[in-house]
């Protein structure tokens, strides 16, 4: 304080520096939140933008003639005999129908028959065959069906395939896209909402346009059922013991430490456990929803136990005391009074645990759920038992599709992610609403 210029009303350099540092610090904080928010927006928008395409699909409307001579040589309308004609017998019929249509519309093209064939999905012949075998009377006449267009044609109408990329692609050509555009102008080719994406089973490497999530959704549903039926009672029972009955001793300490550690064990380790104990040791079936459900149960238990204990803790002791005072046993006070009051909290925790389990992928890879499954798994069968038939799961199906070469599968994978995220959003919203609705302050 040697100079008189040091008034409190005038900021000196040091104060300015300190205030600037303060502002900077605040900006770092805002910046950090900005980065997190930006990451979230980027993540969701990239998945959404690349995945919406999976929900629409390009179909070609074709009037196919079904000549008796090719499909039913014997003349007996016997399904067993007719089934001898494979999809290779049906594919040329579809091609001829498309060629006829192109000629009718007056489109001139340099495409060879083979190139026209490539515009129709390989799945189309199979679905035509199934349709004919189900309705043998159609043979000899004509049938009008919407069949799937090839993945490249489909990609063209969604903007994934362009004239330039088609020129470099061995599986299609700019000419084919030009013809497809003309057909679309005439209303023969149409892109519309694709229910099959949610219901159809997976399809092989060459036909991404036919692949769907049916088996995966069913498999995930079965696993969630197993998790719910096992994890909820076991988790609640364990929490009740630890919270209400356990004496303070070595054993309960050990259990507590175990639970908090299990919550942090990497998920892949649970996969190894499942493979070694449930499949190799116990002999349960590989890729079955039962094994998947058991593994996910063990993973979800800590989550459910932690939230159930929090819910039990929030019930005030006066409730227990009141019950004991009118002659209830300790067990009765818990089951008749504490548990019902804690139920909303338990339910919320369970739903969040289930949502976690639904998105889990790594352990399921190890127990064989990456297998290619085209049959809808039955909940029960004599050979495989309860939930024993091979299935896949939603997140595993996503992984599976990312490993395929055809770019059509990348779109499918993102589409499957959207489905998964919708499920998760619904579950979490229900959990939040439940909590809001039943939340009680004592």
């Amino acid at each position, binding site marked *: 304080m040697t100079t008189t210029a040091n008034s409190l009303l005038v900021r000196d350099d040091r104060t300015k520096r300190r205030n600037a540092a303060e502002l900077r610090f605040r900006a770092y904080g805002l910046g*950090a*939140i900005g980065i*997190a928010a930006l990451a979230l927006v980027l993540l969701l928008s990239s998945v959404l933008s690349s995945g919406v395409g999976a929900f629409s699909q390009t179909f070609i409307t074709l009037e196919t003639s079904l000549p008796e001579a090719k499909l039913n040589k014997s003349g007996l309308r016997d399904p067993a005999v007719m089934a001898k004609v494979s999809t290779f017998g049906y594919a040329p019929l579809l091609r001829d129908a498309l060629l006829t249509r192109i000629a009718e519309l007056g489109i001139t093209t340099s495409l060879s028959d083979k190139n026209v064939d490539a515009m129709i999905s390989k799945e189309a012949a199979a679905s035509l065959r199934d349709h004919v075998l189900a309705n043998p009377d159609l043979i000899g006449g004509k049938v009008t069906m919407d069949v799937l267009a090839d993945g490249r044609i489909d990609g063209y109408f969604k903007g994934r395939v362009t004239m330039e990329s088609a020129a470099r692609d061995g599986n299609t050509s700019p000419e084919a896209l030009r013809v497809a555009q003309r057909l679309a102008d005439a209303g023969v080719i149409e892109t519309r909402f694709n229910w099959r994406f949610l219901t159809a089973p997976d399809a092989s490497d060459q036909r991404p346009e036919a692949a769907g999530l049916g088996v995966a959704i069913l498999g995930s549903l079965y696993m969630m059922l197993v998790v719910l039926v096992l994890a909820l009672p076991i988790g609640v029972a364990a929490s009740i*013991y630890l919270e209400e009955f356990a004496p303070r001793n070595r054993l309960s300490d050990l259990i507590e430490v175990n639970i908090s550690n*299990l919550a942090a064990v*990497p998920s892949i*380790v649970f996969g190894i*456990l499942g493979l070694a104990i449930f499949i190799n040791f116990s002999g349960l079936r590989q890729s079955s929803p039962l094994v998947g459900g058991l593994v996910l149960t063990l993973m979800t238990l800590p989550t459910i136990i932690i939230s159930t204990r929090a819910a039990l803790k929030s019930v005030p002791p006066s409730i227990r005391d009141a019950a004991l005072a009118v002659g209830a046993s300790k067990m009765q006070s818990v089951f008749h009074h504490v548990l019902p009051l804690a139920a909303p909290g338990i339910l919320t925790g369970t739903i969040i645990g289930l949502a976690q389990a639904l998105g889990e992928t790594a352990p399921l890879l190890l127990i064989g759920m990456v297998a290619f499954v085209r049959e809808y798994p039955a909940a029960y069968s004599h050979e495989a038992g309860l939930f024993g038939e091979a299935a896949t799961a939603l997140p595993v199906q996503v992984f599976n599709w990312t490993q395929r070469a055809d770019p059509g599968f*990348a779109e499918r994978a993102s589409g499957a*992610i959207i489905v998964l995220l919708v499920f998760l959003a619904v579950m979490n919203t229900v959990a939040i609403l439940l909590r809001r609705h039943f939340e009680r302050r004592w």
Partner: protein
Amino acid sequence: MWVIDVVFSLPVLVLGLAILGFTGARTRVLVAARGDIRSLSDLPRAHGLNAFFSVIIPAVASFVLLSLVRLIGNQQGIETLSARTGFWVVLAVAAIGGVSAIRRSSAGFRARVASETWIKSLLIAASLVAILTTVGIVLSMLFEAIHFFRQYSWRDFFFSTDWAPNFRGNSALGILPLLWGTLYVSFIALMLAVPVGLFSAIYLSEYAGPRMRSVAKPLIEILAGIPTIVYGLFALITVGPLLRDYFAQPLGLGGSASSVMTAGLVMGIMLIPFVSSLSDDTINAVPQAMRDGSYALGATRSETIRQVVIPAALPGIMGAVLLAASRAIGETMIVVLGAGAAARLSLNPFEAMTTITVKIVSQLTGDTDFASPETLVAFALGLTLFAFTLGLNVLALMIVRKYREQYE
């Protein structure tokens, strides 16, 4: 016929016996009471319940025990007892339990106490599942890892820098390149997640008003609820190509979309909510009096945070970082889809490298032969991973616990 399957299945038969036991015991005491239940020491329902549990619990316990004996027998190649014998033994145990419970039911019998003892044993059994799971994890990996180390020298596994599995034999199975990849990816992830997570926690707990908090906190928590496969796909289709086209290729650092950087950055995003919510808790736990004292001395807000709040919350923040590190090391899907499969010891973050978890997945999926070291190595890798993460978790929990005691 599935109806026959179900009706004659063990669970349904045991349940049937239990219901029989319930009605049996209840009827017996009702008859003993001659219609006036005031003469009973416990309600008829309690007697029924006791009989019900006396059937179910011993039956389930004997089923578990017999299954275990059978499975261990199968493992050793010994025929211990047939499924048929087991079926009848369990049914017999159930019937004996039911009959003895009905016979014990009398007017003076303390049925409520007896049935509650059964319930308590169920509760204890449920809480033992946690211990059994840990034991199962350790045993399942330990046995196979021992098999592995019989066929492959542990020195080569832990100290060799070569990873080249070959299903015709003579593989090099050194863990070091995988460990390097794991640590490198985790390091990059933490370099992103720790500053971002910490600063957002500081901002949310010290600066933000209630409105900002109510928007930003759930936003960050959404990141925690997104499954890792989604992050993996994000790395694969967006971040990887972006980094390759705009950083790696122009800088001449490599042409691969999957790289340590890709996986690390995406994993970092995944870890932000971890670091932020755990540090938020510990920052909020710092007593307001400490802040007030600092303000009273003339410190600005940021000076208070840096010199008082953060040092006070440091143990908790350390715990959060360690937990995040353990998450990063054990994370699988992001690295499977984002980091690549080539085992490599390199410093270039734009090169594809691989991690322990990626190799566990690749060695255990597809055609596996549980006698060959190429498959068994996955269990040794798993055990190493488990030991690593367990160590980190225990350390983190210890730090957090010690810290909590200080201010509460």
